[in-house]
């Protein structure tokens, strides 16, 4: 028998303190971006979005709806009027596109009950996006320096998980902002990000250091990374889901003749927000499935069974089932829209409970708190 003292577990203190400084810098940067995004959401002008993966052609074209009352459609989203007055796909708009070529006679008819895609835009929103990118880079730097300082993969405890999840949520948001013009989600994504980072820095902080032997495995890079990236996607999806509920309420109120003011009045259409929310669940759900399977393979290697109903396993299974229900509900008539969004939010609640609740309330093999 021999006992070795882990003298090589020394932590690079310089890098560790740089990393700690970056935590503050990145939280401040995210908070500034959040503030600017909020200004854009509240004081921006509603501008049209281009057609893309999530914005259908009909919602962007210079359309003159045949059935809708043009006077009402001037300032109110078309969808409210359409949805109230006509059922089915009859809200049909014929459009001339490419008016710069007078010889062109292409006419497009899109039978899609979809209001124009508009979102609140303000010059500060572009600044906010820039600040978010800066904060994102600081976030990456923080994680990298911490990983190098501790000489290991930088997600081994709650603090590091939270920071990495925020990184992934912001990455997902930046992707949405660039690819889907979804800058309007900025406020709604950065509120949970800043909150989570605040909680992490205040209550979950632990010094950079080595982790318990069970985490000495390349599986940490696979299983935990997949779980973290999926969580980032689910957070953006949940933010879009909450935004959807607000936008949906606004549309209902408008349909009932009430006036709506503030941020709620300037949101994009609920249909678009629903698609954004769905998109990110479609992205995150297979990753979450993969994370669970990778976790099972790792558990098989580390704990001697691939599935043992450990609380963490139970709740990741529950989360999986709820999101599976979300996807099935979307394919089921009568469940679309608000109900489905609520299922997605329940899924997010299960996910967050799995992350915080299980680690602090139950004792299990995943207790790294």
């Amino acid at each position, binding site marked *: *028998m021999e*006992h*070795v*003292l*882990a003298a090589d*577990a020394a*932590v690079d203190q310089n890098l560790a303190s740089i990393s700690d400084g970056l935590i503050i810098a990145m939280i401040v940067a995210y908070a500034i971006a959040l503030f600017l995004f909020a200004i854009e959401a509240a004081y921006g002008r509603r501008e049209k979005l281009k*057609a*893309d*993966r*999530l914005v*259908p*052609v*009909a919602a962007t074209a210079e359309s003159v709806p045949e059935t809708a009352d043009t006077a009402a459609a001037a300032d109110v989203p078309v969808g409210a009027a359409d949805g109230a007055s006509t059922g089915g*796909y009859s809200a049909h708009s014929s459009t001339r596109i490419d008016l710069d070529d007078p010889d*062109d006679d*292409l*006419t*497009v*008819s*899109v*039978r*899609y009950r979809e209001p124009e895609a508009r979102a609140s835009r303000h010059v500060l929103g572009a600044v906010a996006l820039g600040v978010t990118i800066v904060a994102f880079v600081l976030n990456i730097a923080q994680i990298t320096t911490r990983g190098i300082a501790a000489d290991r993969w930088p997600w081994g405890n709650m603090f590091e998980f939270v920071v990495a999840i925020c990184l992934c949520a912001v990455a997902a948001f930046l992707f949405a902002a660039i690819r889907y013009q979804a800058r309007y989600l900025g406020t709604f994504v950065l509120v949970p990000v800043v909150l989570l980072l605040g909680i992490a820095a205040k209550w979950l902080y632990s*010094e950079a*250091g*080595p982790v318990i*032997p*069970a985490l*000495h495995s390349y*599986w940490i890079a696979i299983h935990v990374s997949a779980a973290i990236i999926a969580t980032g996607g689910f957070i953006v999806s949940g933010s879009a889901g909450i935004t959807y509920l607000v936008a949906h309420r606004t549309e209902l109120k408008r349909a009932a003749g009430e006036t709506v003011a503030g941020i709620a009045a300037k949101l994009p259409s609920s249909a*678009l927000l629903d*698609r954004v929310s769905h998109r990110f669940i*479609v992205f995150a*759900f*297979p990753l979450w*499935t993969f994370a669970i*399977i990778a976790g*099972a393979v790792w558990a098989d*290697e*580390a*704990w*001697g069974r*691939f*599935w043992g*109903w450990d*609380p963490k396993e*139970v709740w990741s*299974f*529950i989360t999986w*089932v*709820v999101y*599976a*229900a979300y*996807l*099935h509900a979307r*394919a*089921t008539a009568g*469940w679309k829209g608000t109900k489905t969004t609520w299922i997605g939010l329940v899924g997010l609640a299960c996910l967050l409970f799995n992350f915080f609740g*299980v680690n602090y309330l*139950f004792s299990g093999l995943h207790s790294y708190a």
Partner: protein
Amino acid sequence: MTMLPTTTGGKDSTSGGSGESGGAEPTVASLSALGWARWVWRVLTSMRTALILLFLLAVGAIPGSVLPQRRVSTEQVQNYFLDHPDTAPWLDRLYLFDVYSSPWYAAIYLLLFVSLTGCVVPRAAAHYRAMRARPPRTPRHLSRMPYSARFTTSAAPEAVLAQARTLLKGYRTEADTDAVSAETGYLRETGNVVFHFALLALLIALGAGAFLGYRGNMLVVEGDGFANTLPSYDTFFPGHAVDEGDLQPFSFTVEDFRASYIDEGDLSGQADSYSADLTYKAAPEADEQTHELAVNHPLSVDGAQVYLLGHGYAPEFQVADANGDVVFDQPVPFIAREEATFTSDGVVKVPDASPEQLGFSAVFLPSATEGADGELVSDFPDARDPVVTLTAYTGDLGMDSGRSQSVYQLDTGDMAEVGDSPQLSPGDSWELPDGAGTITFTGYSEYISMQVNSDPARLPALLAASAAVLGLLATLLVRPRRVWVRAKTQDDGRTVVEVAGLVKTEGAGATTEFHRLAMTLRDRLRDRPATDTGTKE
């Protein structure tokens, strides 16, 4: 549930059961047994039922994470019974300490899987037919499609259709007289079917594993050997179909164990790594091999896995009884009270001592120091200054009573306490009061707690799960869509081109895509003379 699942999708006109429901409509009140079965089957295989069952599956899993579970820790369940003597028996009646093997949980997931089968099998059959079928004929009124575009061109209709075919790369196309009908994205439904069948396969694999596999736990002290036979295990959980003779005939010896701990900073005392050197034989006549067993590095031998789960100290004692005969000389595994310091508890039972049996309850402190209130504590998990303190008992250990006894607990009901020992360091002896005997703390070894798992379903389960992920990706990312292009000559000699698109799933992206397709087709037909089309690509 022996009915053929022909009722989904309203496509049962060809099957035998259609006569009843078609003819005798008025007799709703007196549904035949078959009618009832059909109704039950239809309800069970509906998406709404599947959704409800999914929610039940999720909600039903919750108590298992809140209450202790027997299959995770029987000890915690026993403690729960002690702490809540009133509620625990009731919870037990509802199987809440065995949630995942309870009849009601099994009912949920079996119903779900029946529902799933009833939904997926007909879909698989329909998909098989769809895969073999040609794309549907072009509808007469393309302008009724969710997306449609219309433009005129000077190109001839044949050239338009030829160009459309080259544009519809990746689509399966079918020529109608004046139109092209195209469809793509079959992989979505393939993925859907694969995903659901993979889930069924996963459930079957899990069931088979529980039936054919076994799991056992044991402690092995450094230097000792282990042979894979039933008596070698401390606890053993065989599957229903496992026979004692089925155990793989491997054996191994724990040659050496190493642990290293972090000795500085906030995390001082946390284990950094531990591992054990094994020599093993896959069978008695096989060659001896070596393996370094560590937490993420199990030994795989003959279809079984050997795991290092934990470790602890096994102080060695030599006991001489009142007559001076050495009646005990061996290491005794102690259980760590806390991981941070490895303060460990254990008992020494000396049944062969005479005239009376001897028993000791003991505490082992690997790094003994004085605590804040002057008592002896351990401040580090490593054995820097190992110390043992003992309490001795004489009397009847109760080992012959036939009742099963824990090796970690002393039944002092028929024993008398004779006194506490001073601190003993390795080599120290303690003479018991009244000449009852002598106990010597001769040193210490370490033991490792191990687990052997044999689960023939591991690989099938992994394959099924991987197939599920692949199917899931296909079903979520592939978007099936249909495109029609029709070209007709107008009265003025120009060709009217109609492009229409239909997505079977929701998605705004498709309209954008159809629009791009229509524009590209228009541009190509405008930019080049009709005779050029199709020759360059």
